[in-house]
């Protein structure tokens, strides 16, 4: 035993620092990505022109880094100073002024630039890091072992049956040999032991499925209705990397994330009137989607005349089909989770950036909510609201506690969600 442990140790120790390095680099890229999505993504993409230029290689295009920082914080000032690169960009983009970000520090900008460099590099196949709870391998592994156990059980059951049969035949033979009269054999379907076993099994299996079925009543996991407009989250959130909160801004202010109003769509689609460059889109039934036609539908709703480039005033709101429904006796607040709890949208909604048509990813059951509340940690150290929990702070200081979960501050109590 001790031998094994020393091997583990000798393997682990050299590895640890490298793990740490990988981890910390990830954290910074993550920050950069978050910042990029928050501040830049509504006008810029890494490798294509949107409202503003593609940002790939931006550092190379600016001779002085200090001026680039200044430009990001306050572009108007740099243009005013007459710095040639700034004036050049300003004129190139029709004298459209870039939003000022005075709050960004050098470190923040470095993080963003770092992200631009990594994102501009050929992509690693690991996918998005934002999804915490889904590990695709786990499921298949579980499936494999279940199959293995099933086969094992079956083989053992067959062996047991054979042995039983052998046993009974042997007994019959010994009985015959000893002259004990054999009772008339009972057919298996009238054998009380079989019937009882069968009934119990049926009850258990039936009960299990009835219960499962009953529990699922009113839940609608994987619900994927057809929407009035074929709106692809893959195209918007995935390929073009528009921040979720750009459209669903309510998520950080309100209990509802809110489907964006048509005027928000038109912010971009006033300029983007065709779907040409992206991958082909398909409906669930396999038919191909004409992206440009779908944008035309949006113009219909918005009352926008693309030819004359003006509003006709005859718009009407889009009647989207609601996918995520909670019962009336549940209070759920998006801003609590997104703003205060700093949860990723994907935690509950799945890899939305990979969904063309959105489906319900989680079952939204109470067990699912409560599980997450048991495991998730609140922003205990960062949010001053939690300063009143003096005892927990003390415990953390004394190393009695390493983190505070939602449950610990009463997040699984009834009246946190039901009132």
């Amino acid at each position, binding site marked *: 035993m001790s031998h094994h442990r020393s091997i583990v140790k000798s393997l682990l120790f050299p590895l640890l620092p490298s793990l740490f390095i990988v981890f910390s680099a990830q954290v910074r890229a993550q920050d950069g990505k978050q910042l990029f999505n928050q501040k830049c993504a509504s006008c810029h993409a890494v490798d294509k022109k949107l409202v503003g230029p593609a940002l790939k290689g931006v550092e190379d295009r600016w001779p002085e880094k200090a001026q680039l920082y200044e430009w990001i914080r306050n572009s108007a000032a740099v243009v005013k100073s007459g710095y040639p690169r700034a004036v050049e960009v300003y004129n190139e983009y029709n004298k459209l002024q870039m939003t000022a970000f005075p709050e960004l520090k050098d470190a923040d900008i470095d993080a963003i630039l770092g992200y631009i460099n990594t994102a501009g590099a050929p992509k690693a196949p690991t996918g998005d890091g934002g999804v915490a709870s889904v590990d695709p391998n786990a499921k298949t592994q579980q499936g494999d072992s279940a199959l293995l156990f099933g086969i094992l059980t079956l083989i053992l059951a067959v062996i047991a049956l054979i042995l039983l049969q052998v046993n009974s035949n042997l007994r019959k033979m010994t009985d015959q040999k000893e002259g004990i009269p054999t009772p008339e054999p009972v057919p298996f379907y009238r054998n009380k032991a079989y019937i009882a076993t069968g009934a119990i099994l049926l009850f258990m299996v039936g009960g299990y499925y009835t219960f499962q079925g009953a529990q699922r009543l009113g839940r609608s996991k994987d619900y994927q209705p057809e929407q009035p407009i074929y709106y692809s989250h893959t195209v918007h959130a995935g390929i073009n990397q528009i921040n979720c909160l750009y459209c669903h801004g309510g998520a950080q202010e309100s209990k509802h994330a809110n489907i964006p109003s048509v005027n928000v769509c038109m912010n971009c689609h006033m300029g983007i009137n065709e779907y040409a460059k992206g991958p082909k889109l398909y409906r669930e039934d396999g038919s191909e989607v004409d992206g440009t036609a779908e944008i035309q539908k949006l113009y219909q709703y918005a009352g926008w005349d693309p030819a004359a480039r003006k509003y006709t005033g005859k*718009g009407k709101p889009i009647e989207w089909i609601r996918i995520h429904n909670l019962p009336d006796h549940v209070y759920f*607040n998006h801003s609590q989770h997104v703003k205060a709890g700093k949860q990723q949208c994907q935690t509950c909604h799945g890899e939305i950036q990979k969904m063309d048509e959105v489906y319900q990813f989680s079952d939204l059951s109470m067990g699912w909510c409560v599980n997450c509340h048991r495991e998730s940690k609140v922003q205990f150290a960062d949010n001053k609201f939690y300063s*009143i929990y003096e005892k927990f702070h003390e415990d953390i200081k004394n190393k009695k506690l390493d983190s505070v979960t939602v449950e610990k501050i009463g997040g699984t109590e009834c009246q946190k969600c039901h009132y």
Partner: protein
Amino acid sequence: MDHKKYWQSLGELKQSDAYQDSLKDEFSEDLPFEANGKGTLEASTPRRDFLKYLGFSTAAAMAAASCEMPVKKSIPYLNKPDAIIPGVANYYATTFVQDGNVVPVVAKVRDGRPIKIEGNELSSLTGGGTSAQVQASVLDLYDTARLRYPMGNGKEVTTFDAFDKMVGEAMTAAAGLPTVILTGTVTSPSTKQVIADFLAKKPGSRHVQYDALSASGMLLANEACYGKRSIPSYHFENARVIVSLGADFLGTWLSPVEFSRQYAAGRRINQANPEMSKHIQFESMLSLTGANADDRFVHRPSETGAVALALLAKIGGAVTAPALADDRLKKGIDMAANMLKSANGAALVVCGSNDPHVQTIVNAINEAVGANGKTINWASTLNTYQGIDKDMAQLVQDMNEGKVGTLLIHGVNPAYDYYDAKKFADGLKKVAVSVSFNDREDETTVLCKYAIPDHHYLESWGDAEAKTGLISFIQPVIAPLFKTRAFQTSLLKWSGNNTEYGDYVKSYWLNRLGSQEAFDKALQDGVIENAPLPLAAAYNNTTIASAASSIASGKKGGKAELVIYPKVSMGSGKQANNPWLQEMPDPITKATWDNYAVISYAMAQELGIKIDDNYEVEVFKPVIKIKAAGKELSLPILAIPGMQANTMALAVGYGRSEKVGRAAANVGQNAFPLVGFNGTTFDYHVLDVSYEKTNETFDIAYTQSHNQYEGRKEVVREYALSEIKKTPKILADERHKLVEDYAKNTNDYRAEGTLYPNYPYPGAKWGMNIDLNSCTGCGACTIACTAENNVSVVGKSEVLRAHEMHWLRIDRYFATYRDDSGGDNLDDLNVVFMPMLCQHCDNAPCENVCPVNATNHSSEGLNQMTYNRCIGTRYCANNCPYKVRRFNWADYTGSDSFQDNQRGLLDDSVMMMNDDLTRMVLNPDVTVRSRGVIEKCSFCVQRLQEGKLKAKKENRPLETGAGGKWDIKTACQQACPTNAIVFGNVNDKNSPVSKIRNEEQTNRLFYALEQIHVLPSVSYLAKIRNTDRHVGLKHEEHQAAAEPAGAEGKAAEKTEAAH
């Protein structure tokens, strides 16, 4: 030795058998099984029928629910307005104006619907206080009985243009005769301008203001004495001695929200130096104000003038008062006079009489005691009562004589509330063009040829100047629900000005305020305040002598007299179709849904009505026939202590026509016809009434006998100021006995006095404190709670069965002495109000009896109720010592029933609350409860969660009142006009609730039924009376009360053992 007792009903006072029986069950009725001993097949609901129903309803439910999930749509804005985020409430300042009440408010608008009214804390008038009527006004917006379109000759007129044309032509045809605009008191400066412009275009026309409950007598007296036909500002907070001659200034007189706030300020007690104002009330019936008085004396209504004169004479006025018979009353007048004299001007006398002569004498008293300029401020006059009764009488006369061509009626309903409604109705027939702007087809509107309903105030633009220099604004918080138009827009249009009134108000105030910024700020704040400095007015005493002689020669009272009064909830009846107000228990009688003759026990005895064992346990009340002023009324009686022996009282606002609405119809009877007119002013009393008993009975739904404490004592605490001064620790010492008895080892009653573990509360721990000395019992909190928490209306038939749902009730206690012979002295009466809500006990008895754990405790000290877990055993309600849990006996909100399925089972008023329109008032953050579950006060948990989230999002600690910063106020706390309720985080040492409990008010602090160790989260501060009489229990009685003794104690002991 006399023996003080606190009691809620006579049965409790006398411990009658019927009362004892009624205590046995929390739920007073049997299960609706009709077992007749013949077996289940013979029963009226046999088993087979039951199975049939079961089968049918299961099948029906399956069919109705179907197996498909309904498809729900999510429809975002086309163009989202910047300020609106769906799911986040917006607040807009506006103003509630009705019947002389001008209350600046803030309307909470959620997703476009106003759902709650809060007081505007920027107003110096109210400081954020409200009244029950203000709180209930949001429901009036969604009233199903509102008139939804203009009408001409009984038919709908589809467009305003068509209506304008129709009325315009009719008015031109009738132009030979004068036009009269008949309104209630107009406090709006811009409306006054609009009316003046309109009248200027029509020579010979005039504006008549009519107040159904008028202060005409006061206006005329002030005109004679001070040369101003107006009412001054009163400053109750500056008065050390307050004498009220029948003025119910805390409930209904002039500006009760403002006065309550001032009054409470003068009665707030500083523990280090306990002082408070002295309040003496002279009245004929027991009013809310009388119930709060330190000393209270009763007289006949006919003696009002004599009492005022006697008081003036004692103070030193050169008048002789008619003799008064009652010795107690005479002593009271002596005492009041002495106190007033010694107050050095910090005194105030107010009088509710509408007789100018009496008001003249009151003015003389105020002059004599030096109140003018100190507690009476003539610089800022109250504009909310301007109606002169004689003008109205003259108008009715003119109408009958055919001297009025066009009558425009706005906001008044004389066909209902004028003393001679028939004469008004007859006169109206002779008016060629009659237009009503009222919001519904009320008694007057149905008689008018044209009707064009005005907006509800939440849909309106406007302004109000309640007092000189105190302007408040009205702005629409929702687009008009129906085809209604502002009254002023019509006037503008008909005088040739095509401006909308909204634009008119804007330009009117832009001119006055100078800039758009100033106007925007005024609108956002809701108020502009430039109150002038206090000022005395020049006084002229020439009218005293004639007033005195006129009083002396006044009519003498008959054998019995009658007072006509407005109820705190109902007022003059403008909100009669508001089920929240109809179901609000009257503060004094605790009756809902009716009016009745309030009489004294003596009068009941004289009538031969036995106030026996059953009287207050059973709901049916004897009906008497009252003959007064040539009219006859049959009304049930309610006998209460505190009434003058020969006086009965009758509330106005009831007895409405069917078209006023489903909640108002068939409720009570109209008392306005009994109002008299003496040629100058209306008399709200009848001096000679005859009455006789009938054999009929009538059910009155009153709540005072519901929710009893099963004999446990003492729930309420009261002391005299002198006693508290002498022994400040009288209550603290008594509470300390519990420590001595149960926590000898650790001195920690909380931890040691129980077998249960002492749970920690690591974050916030919620607590509430209610100051019984500030609480006037007005009931604003009850209605605020109803509005905030979707508390259902159950209707009269259900209140009769003790099924009312109020989460917050106000217990009313009478306190009287019992002498050695066992007789109760009902004259020497104190009344104490105690708001009672879920106490959120830390050792809650309800929690451990729930078989499904539907009620349990949170780590923040909340006693949580989870409706979806509840299976309706009601064990929790049985085990609650405070009786604050409410059971949904029916699907009152109609949320789970097929439409109209409960029609006939529930009252029409409940069905009205289930209308799609009315349901818009529901708070979307609070679950609508279904049938079969228990509910109760949640400490407004939705507000707690919202406040916490706000702090979290702003990355800062929660503010619960330290330094005047509040993230969270419960609905009751926000509504309270006297700030009696304080809520906050007890774990925060700087929060007001902690400070009150641990530093500021340790002597007066108590918990209801502390000895049963349920550890409530609601603390109370004892009521203090500034009187020489002994109040509260004697010291030795406190001890006796703490330990169960005698017959009452045994019942308590039994239940104790059951725990």
